[in-house]
């Protein structure tokens, strides 16, 4: 082990020798390339190997010889040097006044990360941010207004009238303005139902994101997430999943290992309801507060249990958690606005065609009788979990979009076809049931055909099994919710 003063020199000499051997143009200085080579950056090693194979062996020799001088990896030694130099420069120009007490922001931050005060704060944020703002305001007030006052009163009757006068064939009229018409169902669901719900969700998410709360939530929840094979970092796709599971599945890319990504994808597909679905399910269970708790309990339990089991089954070690905790900030209105607008625009352009497509598919399915066939098949599992046959339609549509399905159940509830128990069982099963087509495609895209398909088959059986078990348990114990 060399003396402290020598270490810099050995590194410096090796670096100089590598610099002299490099001939190619890499767009950055030779010194930077040399430093990256010494730090064994994989990309740059391949690049140099291909660019100048004749001198690469010499360079490799120098790197290997330099390594023998140090006990730690060269990347560590270089980071240390860099840190010392940075500290020296910063020390010359920055003066720190000793802090006498904690700032208000820091006090709030400490409350957020202490489990005793942090868990109530987390529940408050979820309650007001998600339940009250997205669930009640977005999915309730705004949806009611757009759906009832704009679509049902103004748009639907006019469009129906227009098409009735333009298209003489009943079959094609149905395509646009029928029960499952492109305009009366597809456009209406997209604009009246999904748009307000996801917009309010994105506003809430942008505010939470901009305050710097998410990293604090991540550290608070890390220990629980470790039990299900994830780290606190996964809290971001999970919270995002409450907005849109498809987008959240894409965000699982930020997780460091494939194992974590697979577990997160399963849990998102199975047990995290998206905002659209959440909105309709909250509406479905409105007035059944006990039912809401049972739903929350069962879905939460499934989340933890399936996560725990997948972490046991899937190969690989447990993840490690590290995260910077940025200072708390007051969100800037303009930032929140821009983020929300960009996300809503992106989301809407993604899903709008899918809604139209789903409407056309349902129309074609109805026309050819294919849907009738699928519905008849689905009636069996629906009966097993104690639901009326009519609910099968909702489950079939649920595959196109889960909220489509949930909205279907909502219509059945309005028609008074459900008992309290059936309502809860239906809500649970549909929450767990197959993700929408978009999420299924995303699962396949991100995880590959085999995994994507396996997740869907598992969920298909698992959701009905849980529904069956809950129904059975409620009946055996003689509980009616």
């Amino acid at each position: 082990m060399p003396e402290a003063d020598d270490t810099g020199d050995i590194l410096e000499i090796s670096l100089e020798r590598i610099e002299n051997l490099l001939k190619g143009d890499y767009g950055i200085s030779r010194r930077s390339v040399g430093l990256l080579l010494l730090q064994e950056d994989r990309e740059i090693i391949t690049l140099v190997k291909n660019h100048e194979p004749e001198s690469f062996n010499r360079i490799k020799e120098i790197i290997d010889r330099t390594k023998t001088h140090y006990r730690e990896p060269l990347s560590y030694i270089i980071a240390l040097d860099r840190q010392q130099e940075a500290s020296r420069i910063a020390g010359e120009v920055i003066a720190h006044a000793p802090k006498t007490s904690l700032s208000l922001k820091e006090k709030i931050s400490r409350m957020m990360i202490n489990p005793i005060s942090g868990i109530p704060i987390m529940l408050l944020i979820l309650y007001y941010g998600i339940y009250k703002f997205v669930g009640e305001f977005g999915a309730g007030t705004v949806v009611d207004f757009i759906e009832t006052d704009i679509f049902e009163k103004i748009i639907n009757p006019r469009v129906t009238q227009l098409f009735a006068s333009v298209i003489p064939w009943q079959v094609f009229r149905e395509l646009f303005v029928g029960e499952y018409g492109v305009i009366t169902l597809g456009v209406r669901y997209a604009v009246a139902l999904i748009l307000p719900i996801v917009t309010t969700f994105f506003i809430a998410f942008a505010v939470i994101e901009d305050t710097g709360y998410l990293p604090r939530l991540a550290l608070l929840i890390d220990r629980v997430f470790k039990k299900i094979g994830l780290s606190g970092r996964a809290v971001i796709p999970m919270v995002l999943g409450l907005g849109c599971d498809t987008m959240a599945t894409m965000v699982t890319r930020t997780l460091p290992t494939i194992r974590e990504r697979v577990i997160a994808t399963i849990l998102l597909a199975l047990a995290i309801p998206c905002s659209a679905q959440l909105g309709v399910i909250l509406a479905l269970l409105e007035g059944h507060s006990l039912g809401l708790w049972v739903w929350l309990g069962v879905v939460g339990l499934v989340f933890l249990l399936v996560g725990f089991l997948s972490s046991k089954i899937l190969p690989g070690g447990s993840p490690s958690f590290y995260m910077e905790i940025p200072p708390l900030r007051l969100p800037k209105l303009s930032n929140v606005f821009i983020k929300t607008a960009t996300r809503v625009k992106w989301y809407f352009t993604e899903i709008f065609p899918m809604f139209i497509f789903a409407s056309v598919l349902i129309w074609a399915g109805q026309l050819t009788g294919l849907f009738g066939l699928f519905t008849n098949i689905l009636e069996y599992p629906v009966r097993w979990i104690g639901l009326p046959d009519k609910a099968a339609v909702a489950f079939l549509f649920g595959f196109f979009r889960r909220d489509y399905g949930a909205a279907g159940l909502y219509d059945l509830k309005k028609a008074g076809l459900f008992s309290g128990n059936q309502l809860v069982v239906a809500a649970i099963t549909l929450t767990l049931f197959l993700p929408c087509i978009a999420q299924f495609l995303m699962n396949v895209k991100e995880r590959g055909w085999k995994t994507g398909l396996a997740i869907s088959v598992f969920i298909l059986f698992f959701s009905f099994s849980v529904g069956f078990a809950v129904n059975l348990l409620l009946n055996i114990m003689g509980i009616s919710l």
Partner: protein
Amino acid sequence: MQIKDIAEILPLVELKCGQKGKIASVHTKNHEALKKLMAMGILPGIKINLIQKFPSYVFQLGQSQYAVDKELAECILVRIST
């Protein structure tokens, strides 16, 4: 190194909340862990102040705050300042 010094070096997990010190060294055989710690700027000589131990280890490092799990916190050796 004197015996007195050695007695003052503790892994981060054994510090009390609010205790301050300087990072003495990073002790791990795991390259990945070392990389992560380095990325956070956890390097010898840097001042560190433990803020919280549960549910995660939270500490102040210069002008930044970081949270790590127990496994990573065990790799950080701190020379306690008196």
